[in-house]
């Protein structure tokens, strides 16, 4: 087991290295070097040169790359060009809404998706099953930002139940925050719940065909006990995987949904940075999200140890 964990951790190193390199290369691909962006349109060539030297942009690329790794290891993402503060600080300022939104959306998608999948599998090929699966397929066909817009149209513009957009930070009260996150979380989570429902259903169907299920039924267990106790527990492995991956996917989905609801999170940060060519911020947010994504995937892999004893003995 220890070797398994160690192996997984080691496997992360080359990926992280590639990720860091990609982020570095991306920003050096960009047209217009950062120095002239900082210096502004009226700056003289000398000014630009001076800023280049300050930022270390005059060094050869490989040297810059090595320095970049060094800074990353120390957790230094550089300074924002426009916000005039370190990128890490800018990210920390914006992380709360994004994390809360992702969390709410994940919970919501699990709360809808798992029961839907289980019921679908239990009544396999029935009208309920087919209705659920068509709904799920429709669900995965709606992009989250579109769903967000439709929710705004329906519940804010027409019914007036929720604020059109905006976010209320935690410090102004949990309930207010929750209220401002209801629609965004739905917009973000509903699509994922469709995915979770489909995965849960197919994994339940697989498990329900196993011999121990037949054995359970043969010894006279109630169908409920068979489905909800024996089958569900065994069917959860792929579902747990997909829940973990969901959280990771939803973080990046939040980037888009935030834009719909004017939520000041990481998504708004990166989009405004793209529009202002604030490369360090783009780089920082991308790395941050990719890092979280990688760690969650690692956690998902490691969770097999808990959920699937077969992995433990490999």
């Amino acid at each position, binding site marked *: 087991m220890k070797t398994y964990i160690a192996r997984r951790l080691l496997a992360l190193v*080359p*990926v*992280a290295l*590639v*990720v860091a*390199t*990609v*982020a570095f290369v*991306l*920003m050096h*691909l*960009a*047209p217009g070097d950062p120095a002239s962006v900082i210096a502004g349109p009226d700056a003289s060539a000398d000014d630009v040169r001076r800023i280049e030297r300050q930022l270390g942009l005059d060094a050869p690329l490989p040297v810059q790359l090595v320095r970049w790794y060094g800074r990353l290891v120390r957790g230094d993402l550089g300074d924002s060009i426009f916000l005039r503060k370190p990128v890490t600080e800018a990210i920390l300022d914006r992380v709360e809404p994004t994390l809360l939104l992702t969390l709410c959306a994940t919970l919501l998608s699990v709360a809808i998706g798992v029961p839907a999948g289980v019921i679908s599998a239990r009544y396999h090929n029935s009208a309920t099953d087919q209705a659920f699966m068509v709904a799920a*397929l429709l669900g*995965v*066909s*709606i*992009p*989250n*930002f*579109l769903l967000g*817009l*439709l929710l*705004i*149209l329906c519940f804010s*513009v027409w019914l007036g139940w929720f604020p*059109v957009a905006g976010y209320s930070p935690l410090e102004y009260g949990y309930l207010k925050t929750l209220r401002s996150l209801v629609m965004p979380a739905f917009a973000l989570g509903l*699509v*994922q719940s469709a*995915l979770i429902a*489909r*995965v849960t259903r*197919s*994994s339940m169907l*697989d498990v329900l065909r196993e011999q121990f299920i037949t054995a359970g039924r043969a010894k006279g267990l109630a169908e409920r006990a068979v489905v909800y106790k024996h089958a569900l527990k065994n069917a959860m492995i792929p579902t747990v*995987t*997909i829940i973990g*991956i969901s959280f990771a*996917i939803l*973080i*990046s*989905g939040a*980037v*888009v*949904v935030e*834009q719909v609801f004017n939520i000041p999170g990481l998504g708004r940060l990166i*989009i405004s*940075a*793209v*529009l202002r*060519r604030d490369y360090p911020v*783009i780089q920082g*947010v*991308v790395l941050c*999200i*990719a890092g979280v*994504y*990688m760690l969650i*995937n690692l956690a*998902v892999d490691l969770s097999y140890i808990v959920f699937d004893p077969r992995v433990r003995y490999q």
Partner: protein
Amino acid sequence: MSTEGARRPLGVLPDSRGIAAPAIPPQTLAGPQSRRGPGWLTLITRRKTTALGALLMLLMLLTGTLAPLIGGDPGYMDVAGRLQAPSRAHWFGTDDVGRDVFSRVVYGARLSLLVGAAVVVFSFAVGVVCGLLAGYYRRLDNPVMRVMDGLMAFPAIVLAIALMAALGASVVNVIVAIGVVYSPRVARVVRGSVLVIRETSYVEAARALGAADLVLMARHVMPNCLSPVIVQASFVFAAAVLTEAALSFLGVGVPPYVPSWGVILAEGRLYIQQAPWLVIYPGVAIMLTIFGLNLFGDGLRDLLDPKIRGLTSERQQT
């Protein structure tokens, strides 16, 4: 979708972490029937959902290719008639500068079609070559696949945004950015099947007969690893359409003057209270397109499922 997501369409594209995509049991295709090999059209239309998917795709294809015949000039502004509700003159209403939303949605189909198709071609070209090389030459396997893993460690939409930031807004750059995002996913699937096919006796036989590596790969390995990949095409297409719409919606995709569903939605968001049709019609267009692609892709996957590929290849031989 986020666009995967953007959301990743269901259970396809295996993940970077090496977690196998959850297996979905083939739900259709009773074995003996397909042995005789009915035509493609019969296979597709046998299942109603697949047929519906094909129909929706056909609708989009026709709308996209015939856009100039169906819609008017998507850029024509009639400022006096701005934000008009749908009427006989303007079926889908007009936008904030008086452009006809119907024409813009129709031309949006054209853009989506273009982006979707181009991304499929791009990501397949890059993905198949990388996958073949990585699967065939053991020496290349590690370096190529580590780069692919690294690219896949980024969430799709975030990588696409970053690429767009680096490349700048244009239709071609959108295609390149989304293509780069999805190539590694194709490469992974290809490599997986190459690893299996490389060890088969017919490849060994061809090698024994003195076939050069390139010939081997092109004539024997590639054709046989394509069928699991082709299934991905409709999902990559759907993901590309979604990602383009999301990028354009965020304002980092195609330039604002290009009629794109995402661009229309971004404008519609600002006028959602006065002019809901700006959101509804392009929204329905996106939904129907993705729904069609997903239905069709699901059907296609069941038809070409690697688990029942024995049947398919038998059919090809007869």
